């Protein structure tokens, strides 16, 4: 994968120090705790992390879809094409949703309304955001469905979601997201619910669509294998913070955060055949009871006493590669 192009200027999407907290049972769950990231035009940017680390919440807050209450965006800025989305009123946000930023969700079965036909749901975004006559809308929908590789799209328009297979439903979701020609598509684990062969087809589809339409994709996943196949740039998230960022070469060849290293070590591969698979000890902390200092320290093999007290700084490894682990950063300087 290519290096991050520096010449792009202002990014399409820039999230700055975003904090999203959830209030419940008198406790404050810090689901997203000060993350920053950028998505440039025509790029595929991936956010990776275990489930429960705040990936989906950070994506939903871009669209202003955090259920509130109990959720609340405490601080931060989300710049999209120069304007701060968090400052916009609901009406303007409606105009951006589905139109300039579209989203594909994890579960294609439950994400489609069971009582409306595919055609009905597919055409909705277009008829809300653009003006198009019934006839040309139908032609456009058929074109969209065949673009995402659905056979005999004309008949599918009258089908209900339950009549389609899982892969086809996800293709419909993608067609729906594409329908208004958005600048940014957020894909929240779009292949998690699908089996492996279908997963590969969907990834291939996303890649070809992106090349054809030159649109940016923010891809959220817990699957490093998937990420390595499509990402121009990767953010590794852990417990509501960014642990590491870099291009796929940097992340996969020389991971600089113990969490990323742990994730990579736990990937199965042919060279590890017959050996016991590595797993990071422990599990993601409950966002309401996060450890002090570095949130990863209870599971980290390199923990020293400062990790328990001090929140770690981002350490720059050059070429945009950064990791939030001063301990490994110092070790590197000693060895090199």
């Amino acid at each position, binding site marked *: 994968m290519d290096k991050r192009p520096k010449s792009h200027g202002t990014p399409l999407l820039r999230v700055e120090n975003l904090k999203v907290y959830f209030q419940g049972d008198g406790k404050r769950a810090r689901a997203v705790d000060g993350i920053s990231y950028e998505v440039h035009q025509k790029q595929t940017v991936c956010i990776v992390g275990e489930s429960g680390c705040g990936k989906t919440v950070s994506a939903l807050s871009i669209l202003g879809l955090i259920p509130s209450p109990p959720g609340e965006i405490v601080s931060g800025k989300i710049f999209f094409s120069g304007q701060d989305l968090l400052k916009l009123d609901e009406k303007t946000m*409606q105009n951006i949703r589905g139109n300039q930023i579209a*989203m594909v*969700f994890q*579960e294609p079965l439950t*994400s489609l*309304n069971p*009582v409306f036909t595919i055609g009905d749901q597919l055409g*909705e*975004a277009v008829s*809300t955001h653009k003006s198009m006559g019934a006839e040309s809308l139908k032609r456009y929908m058929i074109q969209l469905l065949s673009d995402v590789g659905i056979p005999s799209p004309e008949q599918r328009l009258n089908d209900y979601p339950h009549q389609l297979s899982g892969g086809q439903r996800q293709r419909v979701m993608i067609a729906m997201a594409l329908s208004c020609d958005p600048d940014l598509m957020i894909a929240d684990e779009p292949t998690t619910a699908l089996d492996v062969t279908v997963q590969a087809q969907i990834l291939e589809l996303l890649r070809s669509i992106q090349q054809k339409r030159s649109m940016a994709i923010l891809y959220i996943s817990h699957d490093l294998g998937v990420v390595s196949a499509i990402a121009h740039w990767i953010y590794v998230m852990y417990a509501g913070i960014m642990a590491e960022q870099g291009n796929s070469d940097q992340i996969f060849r020389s991971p600089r955060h113990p969490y990323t290293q742990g994730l990579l070590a736990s990937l199965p591969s042919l060279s590890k055949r017959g050996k016991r698979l590595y797993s990071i000890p422990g599990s993601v902390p409950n966002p309401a009871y996060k450890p002090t200092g570095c949130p990863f320290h209870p599971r980290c093999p390199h923990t020293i006493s400062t990790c328990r007290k001090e929140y770690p700084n981002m350490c720059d490894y050059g070429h945009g590669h950064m990791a939030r682990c001063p301990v490994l950063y110092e070790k590197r300087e000693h060895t090199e």
Partner: protein
Amino acid sequence: MLSFIGRSVIQKTITLFFVSIVSFLIIHLAPGKPSQVNPMNPKFTPEILERFQKEFHLDKPLYVQYLYFYRGLFTGQTVSWKDNQSVFSKIWGRFLNSLPLFIVGTLITWTLSFPVGIRSAIYRGGIYDRTTTFLSYLLISIPGFFFAYVLIIFVVNHFHVPVIGMETFGIANSSIPHMIMDRIWHLLLPSVLGATGGIAILSRYVRSQMLEVEGQDYIRTAKAKGLPPDQVHYKHAFRNALLPFVTMFGLILPGLIGGSVIIETIFSWPGMGRMAYDAILARDYPVILTVNFVSAVLVLAGTFVSDLLYLVVDPRIRL
């Protein structure tokens, strides 16, 4: 589709057969005999009693009585033991009296419950939601007969209109608009009262259904498409929240024959409920059993209608 209709008609006929046996047995198990209801009545001499028993086959074994009764029912010859009138014409007359109460009450219940329930679900936790929640629980907790008297006193004192009975005595001689207004005033209170409990319960049910649907993934999808809130709530959410009510809609059919004993008694309304109640007190078996049988038919017809309606509203269901 045709096979579904055929199958369910056969199934329902079998069910009806068992219902007829069980209800017949239960009535005869109940204490008291038709001939003993009023032993103090000087007209009930032993000779007359014997004639009465012979006349209505009360001296025969139960299964013979059962056959006699249902033969009478299907040939339309059943008569009330109390006044020797045809049971069907008795029920029909009372049914026509109860019908306006039922229709107006049901209309009020269903047209009010949905907007109230949906609104409180959309603005969950807001002032509107909390007010309607409080009012629903208030209406559920207040006994109907008490609430009825409060309303009667209020309406009579403030509007000076008659509310008891079906119409004012002697009104038949006055002009037609007069008569219509009189009927409407008489109809208003009992149907509103009949509806209050229904609104309170049904609107809560609508609210919880809406809340459940609003939390579904496809609602998030609809919002992510940038649809305006009205389209999200009233198209995507409401259409799904509606599904369970289709079942309920079929089940209001038996209410046609049930009537309401309490409301009809309070308002001296000569309806089905009171007729059935009086028949039970008089051990007038033909009337009780006929009402019972007709309501069983209506329950079964109601479930059948529900099944068919489901077919219309839920595309996932194929028969």
